[in-house]
């Protein structure tokens, strides 16, 4: 199977270039396996990966134009020549490895932890099954970055727009019956940038390897905001 892979080493290359590789595809082979085979052919080829089963979220790459997790993308689903590039819009550190610091900084901005104002009880804070159900589709995010780096609004304003990943997390804590900082969370999202740069393009939904729906979560935040405002 033919591959065309993005190569860039800022220490030795003036410009990024695409390099052709050929890998023998076996049945059930994932893209990550192919990238490892490419690394065997050329040890200088660099990419992030770890768990190999779509849990750690390390090996997000842009494959034939869409962001995917290499470890759960079967080669059989890909059209030849498979073009593998780093996430769009992020500074490249080397080959497929990009700098995700801005993405993490945006995540940090939404205070992604439970905030209690009442003193913490001795035991755990109980939730009804219905309250727990509200977290489904929000808590499963593995922060691979496939969604935010596929989002045009995040490309244009990555410093000001929080991006689908951070907003999904914001929604996860707004939806949590145990959290007591909804007011502050909503206030911090006001303004034209952090939340409202989302124009429901929905690239995030298409890209999410965990099948989550950040656009729906963003719509839900807007709904809560409106309810809270009037």
């Amino acid at each position, binding site marked *: 199977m033919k591959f065309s892979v993005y190569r860039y080493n800022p220490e030795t290359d003036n410009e990024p270039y695409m390099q052709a590789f050929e890998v023998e595809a076996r049945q059930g082979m994932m893209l990550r396996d192919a990238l490892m085979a490419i690394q065997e052919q050329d040890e200088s080829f660099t990419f992030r990966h770890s768990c190999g089963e779509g849990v750690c979220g390390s090996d997000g790459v842009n494959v034939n134009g869409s962001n995917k997790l290499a470890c759960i993308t079967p080669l059989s689903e890909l059209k030849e020549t498979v073009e593998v590039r780093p996430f769009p819009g992020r500074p490249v550190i080397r080959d497929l490895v990009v700098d995700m610091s801005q993405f993490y900084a945006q995540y940090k901005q939404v205070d992604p932890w439970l905030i209690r104002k009442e003193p913490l009880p001795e035991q755990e804070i109980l939730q009804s099954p219905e309250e727990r159900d509200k977290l489904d589709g929000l808590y499963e995010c593995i922060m691979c970055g496939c969604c935010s780096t596929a989002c045009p609004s995040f490309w244009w304003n990555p410093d000001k727009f929080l991006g689908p990943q951070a907003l999904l997390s914001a929604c996860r804590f707004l939806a949590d019956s145990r959290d007591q900082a909804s007011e502050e969370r909503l206030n911090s999202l006001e303004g034209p940038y952090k939340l409202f740069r989302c124009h429901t393009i929905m690239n995030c939904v298409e890209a999410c390897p965990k099948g989550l729906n950040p656009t729906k979560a963003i719509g839900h935040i*807007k709904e809560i905001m409106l309810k809270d405002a009037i």
Partner: protein
Amino acid sequence: MSRQASGLWAWFLQRATAIYLMLFILYVLQHMIFHAPADHAAWQAWVAQPLVSLGGLLFFASLLLHAWVGIRDVIIDYVHPTAIRVSVLTVIGFVLVGCAAWVLQIIILAQIA
């Protein structure tokens, strides 16, 4: 209110005006299909009806507000240098307010005539 431009308010305004625009366009379309005015005088009489002219005023107000939010969004997305952004927004603001004045002039003149 924060010192920022609005987020929630602009978003709500865009959606609310969109609904009104759609309803009014549907109303005008059905009028043109089923009760098409025979001549210019009939058209004038229809437009001069208080509810129709009020609806028309609201239509243009909604259209201009809707356009303002939409264009502002495009500019916030793509035009980053502050000086250019402020200039472009100001020019567009003037054009939209000019359009509003023009609409008022037309409707008021029609009422007098």
